[in-house]
């Protein structure tokens, strides 16, 4: 069994209003920044063990729990520890 670390990033799909990003954008503008767009997202840094293809495992984590296919996109980086 090998140990891995996955950095998983989850954002909202194109076309779905990113309410939090929009709020942050307005706040940044009111602070004087010249911001045209803000996208918000979540991130999970996960350390795990597995003996099969780690990519498959991370895909599974995302599809089964971390991302909702109706609204989310996800991507990740993998690293062996």
């Amino acid at each position, binding site marked *: 069994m090998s140990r891995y670390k996955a950095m998983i990033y989850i954002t*909202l799909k194109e076309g*779905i*209003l990113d*309410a*939090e990003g*929009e*709020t942050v954008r307005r706040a940044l503008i009111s602070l004087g920044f010249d911001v045209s767009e803000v996208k918000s997202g*979540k991130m999970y840094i996960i350390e795990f063990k597995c003996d099969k293809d780690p990519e498959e495992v991370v895909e599974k984590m995302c599809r*089964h*729990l*971390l991302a*909702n296919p*109706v*609204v989310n996109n996800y991507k990740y980086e993998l690293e062996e520890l």
Partner: protein
Amino acid sequence: MVVTIGIPVYPGTNCDVDVYKAVKLAGASPKRIWYKDYKEMWKVDAIVIPGGFSYADYIRAGAIAARTKMTETIKELAEDGMPVLGICNGFQVLVESGMLPGALTVNKSARFICRWVYLKVVRNDTPFTQLYDEGEVIRMPIAHMEGRYIPSSGFNKRLIVLQYADSCGNVTEDANPNGSYMNIAGIISARENVLGLMPHPERASEDALGGSDGLRMFKSLIEYLRR
């Protein structure tokens, strides 16, 4: 006939006692069931998934609860035809587990909103709304952070049961508290035995608390079960 209604309690559920009181007031026998005791669900006649913050809404509201044995059990029972009502976080569990289509995400304002709203009853031909008139305007409070309904592709408008409206029943943008698609406040499954809604009928079960329109939802369900 005694009607037993199962109320699942996940870690972080916080409206279970309120639902318990309302169900009792409506004339049925409620049973709160801790998520680890999911087998107890086999013994009930219908299920009301209460609101709250199961698993503190981490990841997405309802996401973790939707993947427990308790929810799997509820899903199996629903597939066998048992009526299931999901309120607020309960609605979120229903969409997260695929029992209802679409998704619920962060309110347009990106803030939690606690407020009394008006709802238009679009359909009264369901087990949960048969005591309302079609087109009737009712009042209930909402209290949520993630209540904006997003349809999945091929969404069927026939599923809409409740819409946010103004006091005259007009479905307007102003009356939409969270940015939901088509002002959706509640939808039903294609088989018409699973209803999810963001507003809290149990909080509108007594005039002293601001209204009793919500009580009729529980009464509808009980009447349906008695038949």
